C-alpha cells in the first residue's frame, strides 16, 4: 500500500519531470499531427489513419537529428471542432505540420486556420476548393479533385462500353456530390451520352429504394452512383437487391477503400465498377513494399484511410530532408514541384496549386471464387491521370 511518504516522493518526482527544465528531450522531438475523425460515424478513418502515421513515423525514426513523433487529433468530423483542436495543437504544443485530414468540410476549415497561423497541411479532403478557388500556400493535397475522379472512372467505362448511351445518376446534395455531377454532365456531353435522370438525396439518406425505382423506370444502361462511403454502400446494396446488376452496369464514382468491400462482401461487388484513389494491388515497387510492411506490422492489407496519411507523412519527411530545415516556409518551398516515388509511381506536387499529380484507378469487383486472397475483391481495369490546369481549377495562389 502507498503510504504518505511514498506519495510525497512520487509527487515530487512527477512534478520535476513535468517541469520545462526536464522536458528538453521532449522539446527536441519533431511532432506531426493528424487531425481526423476518431469518434462517431467516421471513427474508422481515425483508426486507420493512426496506423498509417505510426508506420511512417516509426520507419523514419529521426529526421535532421530530431526524433520524429506524432499526435492524433480527434476532429469528431466537425469543422468547428477541427479548427479548435488545431488551434490548441499550434498554440499549446507548437505543432506546425498536419497531415491526413480526410473529410472535405473539416479539411477546408483547417486549411484556412493552418495557413493563417503559418503551418502546413497535407490533406486528403475531396472538395475541389482545396486546390481550387480556396487554395493557399500552406495546403497540399494527395487526394484528387472531382474532375480527376469523373475522368478516371466514367471516361474509361464509357470507352469500354461504347453502346451504353443512357446513364442515370444518384447524387448526394452537397458540394462534393454537386461537383461530381457537374463534371459527369460535361463528360456525358463530350461522349454523346444521354443523361436520362438524376436523383438528388440528402446527407442523411439511407433508404434508396425510391431513387432506384426511378432508375429502373428510366431504362438506363448505366447507374452511376456519385455518393460516397456508407451512402454509396447502401445505394449499391439496395441496387443489387433490386436486380439492377442484371439490367444495367453499375459504377461507383469513388470507393472509400478496401473496408467498403469488406463491408459489402464479394457477392455484391462482383461485376460492379468502382473509381479508386488507392487500391492495394497497384503494381509499383513502392506500393508492394508498403503493402508488405503493413501486412507484417498490422496483419491487414492497407486501405485508403491508412495509405493517405502514410504517404502524406513521407512527403513531409522528404521535404524536411530536401529543405534541410523544419521551418514551414522552407518546407513549403521544398514541397512545391517536388517529384517523388510513391504508391502510384512517380508523383509530382504541382507548384501552382499544390495538387499532387498522380494516377486514379478504375477497378472491377470480382466473384468470390476468383479471389486469390481474402482482400482480393477487385481487379484494376484502368489507371489514368487527368487534371484541370491550375487556372481552370480556379487557384490563384497568394
Amino acid at each position, binding site marked *: 500500500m502507498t503510504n504518505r511518504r511514498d506519495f510525497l516522493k512520487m509527487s515530487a518526482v512527477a512534478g520535476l519531470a513535468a517541469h520545462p527544465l526536464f522536458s528538453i528531450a521532449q522539446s527536441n522531438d519533431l511532432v506531426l499531427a493528424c487531425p481526423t475523425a476518431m469518434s462517431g460515424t467516421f471513427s*474508422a478513418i481515425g483508426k486507420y489513419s493512426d496506423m498509417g502515421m505510426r508506420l511512417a513515423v516509426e520507419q523514419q525514426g529521426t529526421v535532421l537529428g530530431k526524433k520524429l513523433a506524432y499526435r492524433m487529433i480527434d476532429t469528431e468530423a466537425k469543422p468547428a471542432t477541427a479548427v479548435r483542436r488545431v488551434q490548441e495543437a499550434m498554440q499549446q504544443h507548437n505543432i506546425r505540420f498536419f497531415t491526413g485530414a480526410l473529410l472535405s468540410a473539416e479539411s477546408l476549415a483547417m486549411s484556412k486556420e493552418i495557413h493563417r497561423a503559418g503551418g502546413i497541411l497535407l490533406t486528403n479532403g475531396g472538395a475541389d476548393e482545396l486546390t481550387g478557388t480556396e487554395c493557399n500556400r500552406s495546403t497540399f493535397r494527395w487526394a484528387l479533385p472531382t474532375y480527376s475522379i469523373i475522368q478516371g472512372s466514367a471516361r474509361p467505362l464509357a470507352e469500354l462500353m461504347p453502346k451504353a448511351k443512357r446513364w442515370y445518376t444518384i447524387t448526394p446534395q452537397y458540394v462534393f456530390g454537386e461537383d461530381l455531377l457537374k463534371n459527369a454532365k460535361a463528360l456525358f456531353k463530350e461522349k454523346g451520352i444521354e443523361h436520362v435522370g438524376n436523383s438528388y438525396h440528402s446527407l442523411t439518406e439511407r433508404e434508396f429504394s425510391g431513387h432506384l425505382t426511378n432508375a429502373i423506370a428510366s431504362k438506363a444502361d448505366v447507374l452511376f452512383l456519385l455518393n460516397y462511403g456508407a451512402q454509396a454502400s447502401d445505394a449499391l446494396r*439496395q441496387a443489387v437487391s433490386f436486380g439492377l446488376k442484371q439490367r444495367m452496369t453499375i459504377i461507383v464514382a469513388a470507393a472509400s477503400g478496401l473496408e467498403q468491400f469488406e463491408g459489402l462482401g464479394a457477392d455484391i461487388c462482383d461485376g460492379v465498377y468502382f473509381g479508386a484513389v488507392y487500391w492495394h494491388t497497384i503494381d509499383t515497387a513502392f506500393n508492394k513494399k508498403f503493402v508488405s510492411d503493413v501486412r507484417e506490422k498490422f496483419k491487414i492489407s492497407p486501405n485508403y484511410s491508412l495509405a493517405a496519411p502514410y504517404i502524406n507523412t513521407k512527403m513531409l519527411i522528404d521535404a524536411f530532408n530536401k529543405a534541410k530545415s523544419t521551418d514551414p516556409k522552407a518546407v513549403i518551398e521544398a514541397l512545391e514541384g517536388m517529384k517523388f516515388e510513391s504508391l502510384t509511381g512517380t508523383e509530382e506536387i504541382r507548384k501552382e496549386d499544390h495538387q499532387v499529380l498522380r494516377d486514379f484507378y478504375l477497378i472491377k469487383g470480382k466473384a468470390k471464387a476468383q479471389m486469390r486472397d481474402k482482400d482480393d475483391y477487385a481487379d484494376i481495369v484502368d489507371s489514368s491521370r487527368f487534371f484541370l490546369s491550375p487556372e481552370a481549377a480556379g487557384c490563384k495562389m497568394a
Partner: protein
Amino acid sequence: MNVYLLQLVNGVGLGMLYFVLAVGLSIIFGLLRFVNFSHGAFFLLGAYGCYHLVQMGMDFWLTLFFGPLIIGAFAWLVETFVFRKAYHLPHEMHILITVGLALVLQEAVIMYWGPLGHNVAPPDLLQGVVIWGDFIYPKYRLFVIGVGVALAVVLGAILEGTRLGAIVRAGSESTEMVSLLGLNIKRIFAMVFALGAATAALAGVLAAPIRGVDPFMGVEALGIAFVAVVVGGMGSFAGALAGGLLVGIVQSMMSTIWPPGANLMIYVAMALVLLLRPNGLLGRA
C-alpha cells in the same frame, strides 16, 4: 407500369417495415406512458444479433425467431432492474435514462463489432426479384411486407381478442384500476416492454439484409419510429400501422416528385398531421 404506382408499392413495403419498427414504441407508451428513447438501440441489437448469429452459422430464418427472443429477454431484464425504478420520475428523467442506455449499447456494439458496417445476405429462397411487366421488386422486400401484415394480424388479435390484450388496453386507460383488480401490473409492464423491444429487434433483423448493419443505424431508426408513432397517434396500435404506411409512402413518392426532399417531407407530413389532428391520425385526446 407508371412510376408513381411503382413508388406506391415500394412505399407500402417501406411502410410495413416502419410499422414493425414503430409498433413496439407505441405499445410501450400506451401502457407505460414511458417515452423509450432506447427503442432504436433494440433495433440495432436485433440487426447485429442477426449478423452475429448468421456469422456463427445459424440459418437466417432462425434468427427471425431467436434474435427478437434474446433481445426481448434482455429488455425484460433492463425493464426490471433499470426502467421500473424510473416510472414515477418526470418524463425528462425517462429521456435521460433511455438516451443514456442507447448510447451505452451503441458504444458496446462499436467495441465488440467495430465501427465499420457489415452486410447480411438475404436467405437463398428470397434472393432475386419478382418481375411483372415493368414492375420489379426484390423478393426479400415482399417477404418483409408479408411479415409486417402477419405481425399486424397477430398483434391485433392479441390486443383486441385475448385476456392479455384486454389487460394491456385496460392498463393503458388506468394502471391503478388494473392493480386494484389484483393483477400483477409489474409483470405486465415487463412483458409489454419486452414485447415492444422484441418487435424493434424483429425490425432490425428484417432490415439487416436491406441496409446492412452499422453502429449508427439505431439513431436513424428511432427518428423514423417516432414520426410513425406521432403521426399515427401515441399509444395506438392501429395508429402505428397507419403512421408507418404514411411515412413509407410519402418517402417513396417524394423520391420521384422531389428527390432531395424525400426525407424532409416525412417531417413535413408529420407537422401537417399534428396541425390538423394534434393527437395523430388515430390517437385519442
